[in-house]
């Protein structure tokens, strides 16, 4: 990917993200969104992020797209640790990567 493309994407994302954040606060003013729209917006992150992450977990690039038991177990462990400790991201990430190393070491 060329440097120009990377910068183009970055600037587009910067402007686009700012406009999303500025949308109601800056442009729409006092008008409220309809309840159904807010209800759908509430679930964007929790729908988009899993959809994004699932192919990376099931068909990881590092194994040439072959499903890998160690990575599947590590993913499950990450979610489990994250749900148990409620928001301490450091422990969740360490737990997930720890489970991966353990799995790679045991399974190979």
């Amino acid at each position, binding site marked *: *990917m060329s440097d120009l493309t990377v910068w183009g994407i*970055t600037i587009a994302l910067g402007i686009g993200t700012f406009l*999303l954040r500025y949308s109601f606060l800056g442009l729409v*003013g006092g008008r409220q969104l309809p309840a159904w729209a807010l*209800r759908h917006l509430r679930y964007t*992150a929790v729908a988009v992020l899993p959809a994004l992450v699932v192919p990376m977990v099931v068909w990881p690039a*590092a194994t040439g797209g072959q499903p890998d038991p160690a*990575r599947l177990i590590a993913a499950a462990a990450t979610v489990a640790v994250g*749900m148990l400790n409620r928001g301490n991201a*450091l422990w969740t990430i360490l737990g997930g990567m720890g489970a991966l190393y353990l799995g790679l070491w045991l399974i190979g």
Partner: protein
Amino acid sequence: MSTAVPRSAFWQGFRESLPYVLTIVPFALLFGVVSMEAGLDLPQTMGMSILVIAGASQFAAVQMMAEHAPALIIIITALAVNLRMAMYSAALTPDLGKAKIWQRAVISYVMVDQCYALAAQEYQRRPARPVPEKVGYFFGSATAICPIWIVMTLVGALFGQAIPAGFAIDFAVPVTFLAMIAPMLRSLPHLVAAFVAITVALLCAWMPHNAGLFPAAIAGMIAGAETERRMARLQAPEIRR
């Protein structure tokens, strides 16, 4: 008094945000590492953390850059990840809509998940506070959180190359995403949204350039919203939404 009070609101926001700084640090460090790993150089990595300041979308963008996805797909995907911020913007408007235009622009630039969540809690606790104090609170919160994002990205980018190849750093991206998702799974509608999105993503995995993301995300959003609507109707039949 009118000048002293927003200052105290500023420091209140700053203080109350400090515990959340710890949740930012690992993501920012990893973003620096992963971005350099994906082939971006130092200015590009820092450019993204400074211009975008939205962790999940940054991870999505550099991951797809490494996979050489088309630029338009990358932009749409990363902005889809950030759609929730339009909701934050709408939710803050009753409290901050009357602030000065430059203040609203600055708040929009620094409107990250943590600052939004803290400010929303504060405005709920004290809805009658004057607007300048509400602005002061948000500025204080952002001052505690956003510079850390940028500085820790730099640290990760500079020292990430010292991580040896055996550490399977490729998997840091999905682990990071999962660490962001897990705390969101706090209610049945959220669980349903995630489950439906995952199912559709697996069914649509044959589509090129991760395009299966879009039907999966839309199905997940609808499933979450619909579950919430039905649960609300079950709990309070007289309130129709």
